[in-house]
């Protein structure tokens, strides 16, 4: 039968939800589910879980660009069919995982994966740089201030050695979001790349009528920078429109989300900010927000060299300086943010000083601080 546009409601099925996880589990998982005792990571990208009763599961984790083709997924299926009895999974950070129940199968699996060129890099476990959680960027979204897949590829190429090894003090979780909506977990990442606009929205008076509910657009602005106004469109007609007070605008883009006639994007205005020191897990320290340390780097496709350079610098300095188990944020707090900027050789700008709501809580209200190169003007 199939869909019949003339009878769209006939035979319609809705609200059946996803498949049950139960139908999707590899046999080794099904057999040992809930009985796991402990795990080991014998080498980067390989996890071995041991269960009560002797069950063992070997997992091989491979990197993925997330933006993958049907062919790529089918190739994964081929691998899973060959080695894993026809099952595989994806991780919460978009890596893929293949599971088998013996060391031999695991070795064969690994050999197979390695034979396929760069498509399935094995790694992403333990104290590593695992896959970058990211978003759509110029590949699909309407509000981005930068691309996603491109910069992610550039950064992962650059940090590849850390994906395939476990030599860092702790996990580095990198995320990228192409605009302030932050569809990646950018607000709580060890390193976060964030697309930012820097020009206030234009008002498209030819378009505003009809596509835009003016009161919603006006209400969308957290800073009250948008006011109703009369304007003239290119036909010379007077239209009900809005006016943006550029001095108040902080380029959040919320107005554009609500109103298509208020685009912000701009080749020179847009680019990337870098935030660091966030974390999610509750281990040792509570979850932390990422903090803005580089307010802007230009969009420089295809490889965003300014961005990869700063990220690499942070990773290298951290790798050398931090203690075992210390996440980037824990490290920065231990050494002090003044030292973070100094050690990572990141120019400090007033843009890193909060001037939004709750800002006072981030001011330094103690006379105890460290001298760094920043204080040379006072002490030298």
């Amino acid at each position, binding site marked *: 039968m199939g869909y019949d546009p003339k009878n769209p409601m006939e035979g319609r099925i809705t609200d059946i939800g996803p498949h049950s996880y139960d139908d999707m589990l590899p046999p080794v998982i099904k057999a040992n589910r809930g009985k796991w005792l402990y795990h080991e990571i014998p080498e980067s990208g390989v996890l071995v879980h041991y269960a009560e009763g002797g069950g063992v599961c070997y997992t091989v984790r491979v990197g993925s660009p997330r933006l993958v083709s049907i062919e790529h997924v089918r190739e994964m299926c081929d691998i899973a069919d060959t080695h894993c009895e026809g099952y595989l999974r994806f991780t919460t950070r978009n890596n893929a995982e293949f599971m088998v129940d013996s060391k031999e199968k695991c070795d064969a699996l690994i050999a197979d994966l390695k034979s396929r060129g760069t498509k399935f890099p094995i790694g992403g476990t333990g104290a590593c740089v695992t896959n970058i959680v990211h978003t759509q960027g110029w590949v699909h979204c309407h509000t981005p201030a930068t691309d996603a897949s491109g910069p992610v590829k550039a950064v992962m190429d650059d940090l590849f050695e850390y994906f395939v090894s476990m030599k860092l003090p702790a996990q580095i979780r990198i995320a990228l979001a192409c605009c302030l909506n932050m569809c990646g977990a950018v607000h709580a990442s060890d390193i976060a790349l964030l697309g930012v606009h820097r020009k206030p929205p234009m008002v498209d008076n030819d378009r505003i009528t009809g596509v835009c509910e003016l009161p919603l657009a006006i209400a969308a602005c957290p800073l009250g920078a948008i006011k109703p106004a009369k304007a003239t469109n290119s036909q010379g007609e007077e239209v009900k429109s809005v006016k943006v007070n550029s001095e108040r605008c902080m380029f959040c883009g919320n107005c554009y989300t609500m109103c298509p006639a208020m685009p912000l994007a701009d080749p020179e205005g847009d680019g990337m900010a870098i935030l660091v020191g966030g974390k999610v897990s509750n281990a040792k320290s509570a979850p932390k927000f990422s903090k803005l340390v580089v307010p802007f780097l230009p969009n420089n496709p295809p*490889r965003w060299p300014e961005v990869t350079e700063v990220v690499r610098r942070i990773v290298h300095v951290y790798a050398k300086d931090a203690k075992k188990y210390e996440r980037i944020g824990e490290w920065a707090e231990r050494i002090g943010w003044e030292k973070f900027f100094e050690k990572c050789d990141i120019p400090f700008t007033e843009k890193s000083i909060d001037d939004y709501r709750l800002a006072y809580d981030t001011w330094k209200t103690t006379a105890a601080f460290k001298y760094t190169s920043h204080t040379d003007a006072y002490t030298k």
Partner: protein
Amino acid sequence: MAKHDTPMLDELEKGPWPSFVTDLKRQAETHPECWDILGQLELSYEDKITHWKHGGIVGVFGYGGGIVGRYSDVPGRFPGVEHFHTIRVAQPSGMYYSTENLRALMDLWDKYGSGMTNMHGSTGDMILLGTRTENLEPLFWDLTHDLKQDLGGSGSNLRTPSCCLGESRCEWSCYDTQDICYALTMHYQDEIHRPAFPYKFKFKFSGCANDCVAAIARSDFAVIGTWKDDIQIDQAAVKEYVAGNYSVNGGSHKDGDWGPFSLKKEVIDLCPTQCMWMEGEELKIDNSECNRCMHCINVMPRALRPGKEKGATICMGAKAPILDGAQFATMIIPFIEVSKENEYENIIDVIERIWDWWMEVGKNRERVGETMQRVGLPTFLSIMEVEPIPQHIREPRSNPYVFWKEEEVPGGFERDIVAFRKRHAA
């Protein structure tokens, strides 16, 4: 053969990380619209700007979510992406797939779509990336009839719930994350598909405080596994760790040059509550001081395990920064049983208590975390019928601005100024 020159994108074929460009080109062989994806993206790389128009309201009959509409602003040059809507297909909990299902999905997408996907979207859905409006209903028909599966959420509704892999492959999971994720996804199909909320609402389920699905950062309703009794210690295994026979942190730091394991430095000293110590060769934990952060267990998975009386902590209100800054979820319910047996009724109760309230008082596009901030935590707790406890806060208030209610103050608020002035002349 390449339909467009993509010199910049071609640069992204270099390097060790798998290249989405290479992959797109490969797919373009059978799905020529992929050339237009590449072409338009190359144009964006030149222009440093997106070439997608704003929004586009498309969908399938009867659903308010699951599809994100998208149109090219250069359809003339790139007709293959003129319409480029994405389909959010609800993933199986834990993102395990049979190749049978995955292949069927790929075949479906081969038939109706661009050939490109995201495995997965940030919320957890499978994202089928780019199709034309006229394909939506047929695709949905086949998806539901042939593949027997459904779309996820988008819009002001319950978003597709997601979870860490939980007890399927993790020794630490304190409840069955996949099962509750699946059960609630099924229970709330209507809320997922038909927007009736002030704004989006997300559930995420992590089996322990490591929070591998980032629930506390990214969900309005974060269920995080924990236990209420004591950490299980295997003292023999402790000795093996000390002797260097077991790999520390499962081996997570294997490639680093960290020297031999020090139980003191790596576990005892890093315990945030300082509640561990050695008594001879025995590791001791004062569990009444432990905050169940997971660190010691992470480092010595063979010696330490979560307690036996398991359940979860519920935290509420996480969200991204728009508008008032990002929020982590706030701890609201310290411990709750999570059990298939009652079909998660107790958790459903909690969920519906928030929803009933938020649907009434939440403003348009106000995340529940923002509503919580607007009314204040004490009010929110009383709405949730949760007794305020010090665990709800990091620290007590430092300002003295307490709102007393009239009924709390003897004599109430009304006073007679004339009587007052008789005793206290102005």
